[in-house]
């Protein structure tokens, strides 16, 4: 599910119809969720979402094994 956009409408029923028009009239959607804005709590604090310390150990880029792998393979070959 990805956020597609928003519509204005007098009520949730019409909002559902309009959501279909804007995000479904070309058969581009299988399913739409329509949620009133006041039901949404937003979190956009960069300290919470992009905290400054290194977190590379949580991502693939944190593990560069090329040289270690070459060294290990070389040693294995040497030992026969």
């Amino acid at each position: 599910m990805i956020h597609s956009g928003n519509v204005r409408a007098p009520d949730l029923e019409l909002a559902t119809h309009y959501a279909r028009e804007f995000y479904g009239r070309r058969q581009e959607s299988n399913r739409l969720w329509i949620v009133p804005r006041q039901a949404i709590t937003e979190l956009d604090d960069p300290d919470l979402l992009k905290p400054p310390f290194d977190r590379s150990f949580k991502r693939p880029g944190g593990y560069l094994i090329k040289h270690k792998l070459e060294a290990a393979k070389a040693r294995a070959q040497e030992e026969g």
Partner: protein
Amino acid sequence: MSTGVRSSNADAARPLAHATRDALAELLLSIADDEFVIGFWDSEWTGIAPILEEDVATSSISQDEIGHARALYELLAELTGDDADRIAFGREPDAYRHAALLNHPRTDWAFSVARRYLYETADAVRLEALSRSSYEPLAGLVAKMRREERYHLMHLDAWLRRLADAGGDARARLAEALTRLWPDAMTIFTPLGGEATLVAEGLLPEPMETLRERWLTQVVPILETLSLPVPSGDERGAPLTDGGRTQRTDDFRWLHGEFTMVARSEEGAAW
């Protein structure tokens, strides 16, 4: 590699005097060890916290602490020509300088929440002061730490209030934990030997005694509003002894045995 004190001449970073450097090293070690030890105790909750979602949150907070400890050990390593992992893992238990508040094991959920609440709020006062440090590398590092610590304060405040408001058994456990912890709570502000030097040079903008009083002024009213235990007047004013950062307990010795076990199995090896 700059280890200079920020001065009004932007291009003149004079090296630290010997005594200043030693005093700063002591201060950095004390904060790093605090973050390291509490990070370890709370990492024990990984996998067994009361609620699955909370398990993930608690693990993040303890990882943050280890991350801060790492950065502080690295700063200390630069200052003294050492290695961060060696400082972290290579000392005997008596050479660790964390506050007595952190000698206690995680015990139960109420104890962990209470101890962390006391630690985070005290640390916040300490970090605020150090964000004004004349030692630029420390001020910069502390500014980053404060950004991450905001979430810790929000989260622990949320838990303190929920347990207090739940009443009954939950409130009783929280209150009992606080009562047990108060005697050690203030050890975060144990003055270090080199404090006079650090204060004179602005590396530590205010003495620990002042910071302790500021913390108590902030935290006591909050706990009183929640009808939770606070220290007596005598306890508040009692002078903090050296032992606050040098006495080690069997619980900590056990932890030390755990965290040095693998590192010691092959001396000097890479892991």
